[in-house]
């Protein structure tokens, strides 16, 4: 039997600020628990060494403004690189599944990154998805986000990608950051139904979450048939988490992992550093490795402590049925959207970066292509903390796009290079695996 790969990177020398939830102490007790248990010594586990993600690997997913090296800290590069190490271990067949227990997290980081949102600068899972595609030719991937916060960054990145099924359950956005992830957020016009959100009422318990897992998440995975299943393993649905209000337990997380059977799990949030994280992290590793976790529990664990309400179960049943129906009619909806005959679908959005306290104004256009899922053009502007304002233009070509979209996208980039309105113009050409940045002031192009 192959082992479970574990990469433990607690970043003991990095914090957003000394008292920030994302601080050195966050994985300290997890370290104590894992190492005292001696779990890394077990035959079922294989421990891995982290690495830095390259700027090119980051650029496959993000437009970092103004550039990857000025935007992203080394800690973020190590965190993303660690996810890639686990992806390699899994794809090369060295491990049966893998868990990157890393900080800082990533699931709030969107395609364009002007700064840090929800403790995230770059999106570890999304960087991994493009790496899996480029290195191993994987196409269909599912990401199940079990963090208590909506994975809005991951959702935005794959919003127009019909080959990525993104499922997020989280505490209802009316009651928690980032205030999104409602049941009507279902994906872009050409990727409708491959984004599925499950907003949960505060205080939902193991019973409620397992109901959603068994009756919605697992059937969706069954029907979508992804080649790789990724778990954004946030751990803040725990009853002791200081930033949220849910009633999930370490046993609940472990059982979820056993049933979900993710190929690669990547740690996201979870800020109950002392009373939850050591137990949940241990539980997820044990579940992945097939080790009996019935003897693992929080010191104050009491299975009878939380009972699911009948009201909440009624709500969950209705929501599950509704989302299953949406998913099953996704292809019809996409066809209908194509037949509308629009050349571009566009939206405007305003993105607030809570950690860095800046606001980005963005306009995004999707080419409604009759043959493929289209390419994207994004105009974005934000004033960074330094007072420096950047207005940028980004063109993103998916790997799976058609020739005419590729040509049109490349033309858009060339055209925009002469526009003085933009400070930088970017081209994310995933087909050629080339990532261009044009600095319009200096008239210099750089290539990754």
């Amino acid at each position, binding site marked *: 039997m192959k082992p479970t790969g574990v*990469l*433990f*990177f*607690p*970043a*003991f*020398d*990095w914090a957003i600020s*000394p*008292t920030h939830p994302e*601080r*050195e*102490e966050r994985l*300290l*007790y997890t*370290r*104590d*628990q894992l*190492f*005292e*248990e*001696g*779990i890394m*010594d*077990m035959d079922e586990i294989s*421990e*891995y*060494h*982290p*690495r*830095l993600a390259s700027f090119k690997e980051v650029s496959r997913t993000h437009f970092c403004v103004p550039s990857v090296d000025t935007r992203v800290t*080394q*800690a973020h590069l*190590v965190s993303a*690189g660690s996810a890639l190490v686990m992806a390699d271990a899994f794809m090369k067949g060295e491990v049966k599944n893998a868990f990157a227990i890393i900080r800082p997290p990533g699931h709030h980081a969107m395609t364009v990154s002007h700064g840090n949102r929800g403790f995230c600068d770059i999106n570890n899972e999304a960087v991994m998805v493009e790496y899996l595609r480029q290195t191993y030719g994987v196409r269909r991937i599912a990401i199940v986000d079990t963090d208590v916060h909506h994975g809005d960054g991951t959702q935005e990145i794959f919003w127009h990608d019909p080959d990525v099924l993104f499922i997020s359950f989280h505490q209802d956005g009316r009651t928690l950051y980032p205030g999104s992830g409602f049941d009507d957020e279902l994906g872009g016009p050409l990727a409708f139904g491959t984004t599925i959100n499950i907003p949960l009422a505060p205080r939902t318990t193991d019973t409620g979450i397992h109901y959603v897992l068994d009756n919605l998440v697992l059937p969706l995975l069954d029907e979508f048939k992804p080649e790789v299943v990724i778990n954004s393993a946030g751990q803040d649905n725990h009853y002791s988490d200081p930033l949220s209000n849910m009633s999930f337990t370490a046993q609940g997380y472990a059982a979820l992992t056993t049933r979900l059977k993710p190929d690669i799990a990547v740690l996201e949030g979870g800020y109950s550093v*002392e009373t939850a994280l*050591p137990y949940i992290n*241990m539980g997820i590793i*044990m579940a992945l490795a097939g*080790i*009996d*976790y*019935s*003897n*693992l*529990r929080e*010191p104050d664990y009491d299975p009878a402590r939380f009972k699911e309400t009948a009201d909440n179960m009624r709500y969950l049943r209705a929501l599950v049925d509704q989302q299953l129906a949406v998913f099953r009619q996704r292809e019809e909806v996409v066809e209908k959207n194509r037949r509308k005959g629009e050349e571009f679908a566009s939206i405007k959005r305003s993105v607030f970066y809570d950690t860095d306290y800046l606001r980005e104004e963005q306009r995004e256009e999707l080419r409604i292509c009759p043959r493929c899922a289209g390419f994207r053009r994004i105009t974005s502007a934000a004033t960074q903390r330094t007072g420096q304002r950047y207005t940028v233009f980004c063109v993103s070509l998916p790997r799976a796009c058609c020739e005419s979209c590729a040509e049109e996208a490349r033309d858009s980039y060339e055209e925009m290079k002469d526009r003085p309105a933009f400070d930088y113009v970017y081209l994310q050409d995933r087909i050629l695996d080339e990532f261009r940045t044009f600095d319009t002031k200096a008239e210099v192009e750089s290539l990754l």
Partner: protein
Amino acid sequence: MLIGIDVGGTYTDGVLFSDGAVVHSVKSPTDETDLKATLLLVLDELLAHGIRDEVHRVVLGTTLITNLLATGQGERTALLLMPGSGLPYGSYRICPETYFLKGGIDFRGREIDPPDKKEIELVLREVDRAGILRVAVAGKFSHRNDSHEKFVRERIGELYPAMEVCLSNEVSGRLNFPRRAVTCYYTAMTMREWNRFADGIEAAIRDRIPSCEVHILKADGGTTTLEGSRKRPCETVFSGPAASTMGAMALSRETLNSVVVDMGGTTSDICLLIDGRPLNASKGATIEGRLTHVSSFAVHSIALGGDSSLRMEDGSLRVGPLRLGPAVCFGGDTPTVTDAFNVLMDLNLGDIKASRTKIEALAAEAGQSVEALCLAVADRVTSTLKDAIRRMFTEWEDEPAYKVWEVVNKRKFVLHRVIGIGAAAPAIIPLLSRELGVDYFLHPYSPVANALGAAVSRPTLAMEVHVDTQKRTYSGAPGGFSGPVKERDYQVHDAVKLARMLLAELSRQRRLSVYSEDAQVYLEEQFNMIRGMGLAGKLFDVGIQITPGFIEEFKGVDL
């Protein structure tokens, strides 16, 4: 005058060292059934060449503990585990007589579940009925709070005073409960036998050289007093590779990245020196296939030595892994690696004619020229060693990293030199170093380097301290130190000061005080505990150690 004696599996080596020179050296076959007699035989021969009263230090490296454990001669021992919550009990397959007790401590050293007095008594009754007289007690996180382990020892003391008890927190202060339990178990299992051996050795040496210091070489390349070894006999395992590495360092005295290759008869041991300092095994010594908390050099052993036999099997050449006696040039029957090198490089070792005759016969059997056959052997030997060395580099480079700077400044092993140790080294090392593209270092004393290494190695000792200013406590181990700390304004330098004090205390107990002032900090971690928006306290982990090195009077080896 200094004496170093290293008991190996096949031979026991000894040197008498004085004023920078080896006055006399001895190589004598090891009698595994009577190690004491073997030691004394070598000691007496060395003493015959020196001035008895001037010998003030004897260092012994012995395989006693390794043998006891390998041959299953350790005394029957019960292991009492208090794992609390976590892994299933079924995963602790440490020994046949394992008993589980209630009681749980968490990572902060807080009690989660109390021990159960009734249950302890029931288990002890069972242990007693089974006729077991030794007990090892290990609790999860006992190094952060030893009260449960102590509670069990007290019950044993009251009910079965004849039972010998060993507590895991007194053996190790590091995280990793299974390794601590294994180390504690092996300690309990071998303690009495070791003490009997120590008594015998001590008396014999006192009888010959009354005022002499007697030290034991440990797996980490340091020594401890015979007295100090009595509580932790496990530390004396694998002193062989430690001795040869210390010997290599003593002879070369350089701050380069080197690989030490100790070519023995049957096996070769490989160690790395990084900037001249030996690399430690990150996981601790593996004893009988189990990971322990015994600190040890990282040693890679391969089944290939000078005496590895050469044979034709199914039309192809086999090199080793068997040893069928010594090389032909030294009176053996079967041609060996040494013989092949003797012929290939015209080394004139022993009876080179005899080497040639056997090698020619083997070449005829293989249908090859003598030169082609010898080259094939050389190629096999160097490529096997090279692979093992490369693997060690990679393992060191790929050790897990827990800090950003460790990943950003990823270490890379650049080899500068190969240091050859052991009888077969002069034949093989020059070829290996050419293959690796680096210089080599051989010394006329290379064949006795391990005994020399033992003779001049200084004591080592380590102490780890954990301070929790929210709980206002500290714990220090090994030794089971604990106590209160003042909460206000505690800083990392206070924790270092405390660690120094505890190390000094431990070295006083073990009579090693001379070197404790040289202790170096190897671990210094501090974490703010933030609860709500404010500082609730700080956690410090400090590790301090007297690192491997040489005794003050050793200034190098003259030729």
